[in-house]
């Protein structure tokens, strides 16, 4: 087989609207002394030029593997380029892919889960979304791609924080959090960030997803409680204000997250039927999902993660002394919070 004896090469996708700071971040990664050999695949408008680093320009050639299925859209140009990079014995330590400002991260991510040759040599490590703290407010509502890029992210750099008053920054952060509670959010100026926080983060690795668990569970619970809160205390003044804001800015198409936490054991058959139907019918609208589940009759936790209709799930470590529970989160557009909650709860044994 191929000369590679090491594991697959981690790939980081950098997304963000025009002017958010993607190029600044890339230049930082390339020029910092980290001893890594990095290959960059930048979009056709890219402007990175660093000596002694491989920077390949590419146009985003998207095609559908199965006719008409949005979840089978992949990047043909990446498949071609990655195949060539894989030929070398002195492999790259890491690959960075910069997308155009208006790119949908779906096809990039799906390339790493559907193409057999790509899967053999590369693993998607994380999606990093750079957000312009000063201007993102303008784009939240009128630019679908900005919401999608936030929804897909494992790491969000809320950049240019120096240009925004603290109150406005807090509002922007809250809004991002609502769309995507499981991404790690870092506030940056000039995209200055410790590289360990953007590279090699294991965003799609089920094992490593456990490292993120406390935060992720907290996010999911917060979301769930918030949901309860809406129903229980509708007359509350402060809440009314928030509610109004929601009506002003959020509409049905908005990118949002739905977190569900509940004790109890799940019926395996019901769960698999429900998830199968959900992904088949709503997979187009689900950007990311992650979860830890307690399945009746199983000693081990069941962990899963997915992108659109593509899901990866398996038994993980035994529950041991930890109380058995379920925690899962969906990020996407047009998510029906009520139907997701009811559907999931109906899977309880």
């Amino acid at each position, binding site marked *: 087989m191929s000369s590679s004896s090491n594991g697959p090469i981690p790939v980081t996708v950098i997304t963000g609207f025009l002017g958010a700071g993607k190029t600044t971040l890339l230049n930082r990664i390339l020029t910092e002394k980290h001893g890594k050999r990095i290959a960059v695949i930048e979009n056709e408008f890219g402007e990175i030029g660093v000596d002694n680093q491989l920077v390949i320009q590419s*146009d985003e*050639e998207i095609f559908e593997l199965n006719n008409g299925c949005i979840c089978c859209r992949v990047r*043909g140009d990446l498949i071609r380029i990655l195949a*060539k990079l894989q*030929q*070398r014995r002195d492999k790259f330590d890491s690959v960075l892919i910069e997308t155009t400002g208006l790119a949908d991260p779906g096809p990039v991510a799906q390339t790493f889960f559907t193409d057999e040759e790509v899967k053999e040599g590369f693993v998607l490590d994380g999606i990093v979304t750079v957000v312009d703290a000063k201007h993102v407010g303008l784009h939240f509502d009128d630019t679908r791609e900005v919401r999608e890029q936030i929804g897909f992210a494992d790491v969000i750099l809320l950049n240019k924080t120096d240009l925004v008053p603290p109150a406005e920054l807090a509002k922007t952060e809250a809004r991002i959090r609502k769309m995507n509670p499981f991404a790690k959010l870092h506030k940056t100026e000039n995209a200055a960030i410790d590289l360990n926080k953007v590279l090699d983060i294991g965003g799609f690795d089920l094992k490593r997803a456990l490292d993120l668990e406390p935060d992720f569970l907290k996010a999911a619970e917060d979301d769930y409680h918030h949901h309860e809160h809406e129903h229980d205390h509708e007359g509350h003044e402060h809440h009314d204000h928030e509610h109004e804001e929601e009506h002003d800015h959020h509409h049905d198409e908005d990118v949002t997250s739905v977190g569900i936490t509940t004790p109890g054991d799940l019926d395996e058959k019901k769960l698999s039927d429900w998830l199968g139907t959900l992904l088949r019918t709503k997979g187009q609208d689900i950007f990311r999902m992650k979860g830890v589940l307690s399945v009746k009759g199983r000693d081990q936790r069941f962990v899963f993660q997915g992108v659109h209709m593509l899901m990866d799930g398996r038994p993980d470590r035994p529950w041991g002394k930890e109380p058995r529970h379920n925690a899962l989160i969906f990020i996407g557009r047009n998510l029906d919070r009520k139907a997701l909650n009811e559907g999931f709860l109906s899977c309880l044994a």
Partner: protein
Amino acid sequence: MSSPLRAIAFTWHTRLGDFVTDAAWSPSGDRLAVSSVSGEVAIYDATTGKAVHLFKEAHTDGCDALAWRPDGKALATAGRDGMWKLWDASEGKILAEHEAGALWAEYLAWSPRPVGEQGHLLAVAAGNKVTLWTEAGAPSSEAITFSRTVADLAWVLNGTAVAVATSTSVNLRDPETGKEERAFVSRDPILKMSFSPSGKWLMTGNQDCSVHVWNTDSGAEMHMRGYASKVRQLAWHRGSRWLAAGGGDVVSVWDCSGPGPSGRTPNLLEWHQDLVSALHYQPAGDWLASGARDGSVAIWSPTQRQSLISGAKISSGVTRVAWSPDGSRLAATGEEGEVQVLAVE
């Protein structure tokens, strides 16, 4: 599965430093040129295997393509440094070197016959640009720019047109004016293109594991689906009747006589136990060579009942198989730099 009919002789063997990207016999068959992904270019004596020239750093970051000038006196190379170079094959000197228009110069092809008054022309593809050069390595015309990255390049129709494949189409261009003469638009993304020697058939291997076929006379298009992997290998028999395709562990050989392959069942050549990664028909004979990712190399006579003539193995995945012009020797190259010359006994 059948066992081979005839033994194979390992004529000579040598090694480059990394994955062999291309191999080409000189027109007379007395030299074999080989390139690697670490940037080496070597020219070997075809009989002894002794290196006549070894350029260790012909192209920084890798050499992807080789093409002998039709007179056999010079070798063109293209690489991941964005350059193409013309080497004097006996002196080993660089006769010309030029930027090809993008970071990766990936494809090279000499016209099989002189073009107008200009002699043979060399077509070079880098990124979305195709440039044409004279035998001396001087620019022949303006670069032709495509909307997408070039995926394959060849001279067709007796050297009267340059065929350029991108992910979405195959374009025929007039080599003197650059004008588009014909375009075949593909719905599925193209990886590899091959015209039959007669020019009647155009085949493409596509990212979605299909093969498309155009009858260039009628323009009719057919799709052949169900391949187990992407089809990156296509090889024509010199008579334009048989087309061999990779895809999975099996070589499929289609009969393209008369109305073409549509509705026919291909001969399936089964012997490899890993993905087929290289194919080549003898330039003047009927044997087909195939190589696979597990290092196996097979020689077939695809139309015979007992189709497997001979089999061998090299120590890493096969990247290229190339018959010498007279078909007496086969070069097989590997992912770890192997260069093995074989002969059927």
